[in-house]
């Protein structure tokens, strides 16, 4: 009996110890990310400006992600039209398919889906690149050459994320609406004038802006999380793999959580 109590106490202690360690690690990560963000923004505003690095990262985050967001956005718009048509038809509101697609894309799906897709593509690549640079001492080499690694590596990536996520969201919204239109009008037979007219009537500028505001935060989250995990990578090739996985998982969760928080503020 005494042994059972001892074992239970040991398991509880181990569990509490792990919980405590995780909590400390979380607080440490949040602290390091905040400091990294502060330094990255401060250094980005300090001459000499590394515009070439920023443009290179904008091309990587934005232009190279175009194909994946076009694909995601168009199919999401198409499936949304298909599903909402089935539901709205039940109470004779087929004309609302257009606004449903447009509002869903602009306020929610455009920023969230493009955010998640770019996190998977560019966020993981960023964490891997920085992690490899860390374990092969390339980041240390930068510092020994009197080049600030945060200014050289982190600031351009964070700025690129903040600039390009809203652009990618606009593209996702646009192709989503086009996809919805093609399915709604060409496939399901909704009148084209009604579809466009209803959409224009019910979609407001603030709907688009609320989505763009979200995407700005998602861009910051994705790049900052990727840079954090990459920059502080330890443990060789295994560590680089872990950094990539952790950055995608953490950024994706943070995008979904912050989406709810931002939505509740904007509602």
């Amino acid at each position, binding site marked *: 009996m005494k042994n059972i109590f001892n074992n239970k106490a040991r398991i509880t202690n181990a569990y509490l110890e792990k919980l405590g360690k995780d909590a400390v690690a979380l607080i440490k990560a949040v602290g390091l990310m905040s400091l990294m963000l502060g330094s990255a923004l401060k250094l980005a505003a300090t001459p000499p400006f590394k515009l070439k690095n920023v443009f290179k990262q904008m091309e990587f985050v934005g232009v190279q992600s175009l194909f994946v967001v076009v694909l995601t956005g168009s199919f999401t718009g198409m499936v949304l039209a298909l599903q909402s048509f089935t539901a709205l038809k039940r109470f004779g509101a087929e004309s609302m398919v257009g606004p449903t697609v447009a509002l869903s894309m602009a306020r929610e799906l455009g920023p969230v889906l493009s955010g998640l897709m770019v996190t998977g593509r560019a966020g993981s690549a960023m964490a891997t690149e920085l992690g*490899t*640079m860390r374990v*092969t*001492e*390339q980041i*240390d*080499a930068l*510092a*020994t*050459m*009197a*080049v*600030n690694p945060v200014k050289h590596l982190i600031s351009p990536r964070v700025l690129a994320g903040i600039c390009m996520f809203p652009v990618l969201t606009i593209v996702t919204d646009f192709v989503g609406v086009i996809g919805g239109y093609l399915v709604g009008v060409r496939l399901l037979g909704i009148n084209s004038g009604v579809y466009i007219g209803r959409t224009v009537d019910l979609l407001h500028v603030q709907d688009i802006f609320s989505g763009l505001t979200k995407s700005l935060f998602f861009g910051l989250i994705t790049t900052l999380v990727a840079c954090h995990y990459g920059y502080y990578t330890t443990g060789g090739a295994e560590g680089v793999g872990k950094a990539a996985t952790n950055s995608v998982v953490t950024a994706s969760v943070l995008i979904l959580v912050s989406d709810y928080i931002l939505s509740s503020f904007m509602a």
Partner: protein
Amino acid sequence: MIKIEGLKKSFNGKKVLDGADLEIEKGKITVIIGRSGEGKSVLIKHIIGLLKPDDGRIMLDEQELTALNDADLNEARKRFGMLFQGAALFDSMTVAENVGFPLKEHTSLSWEEILKTVTEKLQRVGLVGVEDMMPADLSGGMKKRVGLARAIVMDPEIVLFDEPTTGLDPIMSDSVADLVLDTQKALNTTYILISHDIPFSYKIADKIAMLHEGKIIAEGTVKQMKENQNPILRQFLEGRAEGPIKVY
């Protein structure tokens, strides 16, 4: 002159440096030897400010390196060059871009002028026509040479070498030793190397210092070290498994 005084550093409670003291003469080649994991890399990372000590200080002439703020430390780093163990070349850049990187960052030279200096430095380390190659296409020895060219491209006063012969065959190690001697003689620079390659150290060193359990336990010229009867030093220099240093 660089003076290391009572340098202490621990990681997660494990003492790596435990009051290391060393004087490094200007214009000479100093080799710090010691077993793997004894803190040699940690010691040179302190010299260039990549790590901050828990206690102790490092003086470069009249300047206390360990007390500098980030901006002053960056200025001080311009007096250094460093060759990393794996050369730490930037994967995404060509050889010329790698070697010319410090010049691009810290001077207003045009790319043509930078390229001229890059070619000259590459020739000094025995490389010709490799400017447009990518680091992935270079052999281990070539990477070290490119790394050295990058380390000396700004004509620094002090060059640090982290295990320059690790991963190289004996012939290539000897060739790196010749390269170290040639460039040091030509540039009259202070070279600080860490190594556990004894023949290499004997060939190049003006002074050898042995780091053991966080302290410099012996130092002197090659002749003095060969004559030193410290049992720990003897075991290490002779490469014996038996002796006061326990093998785990």
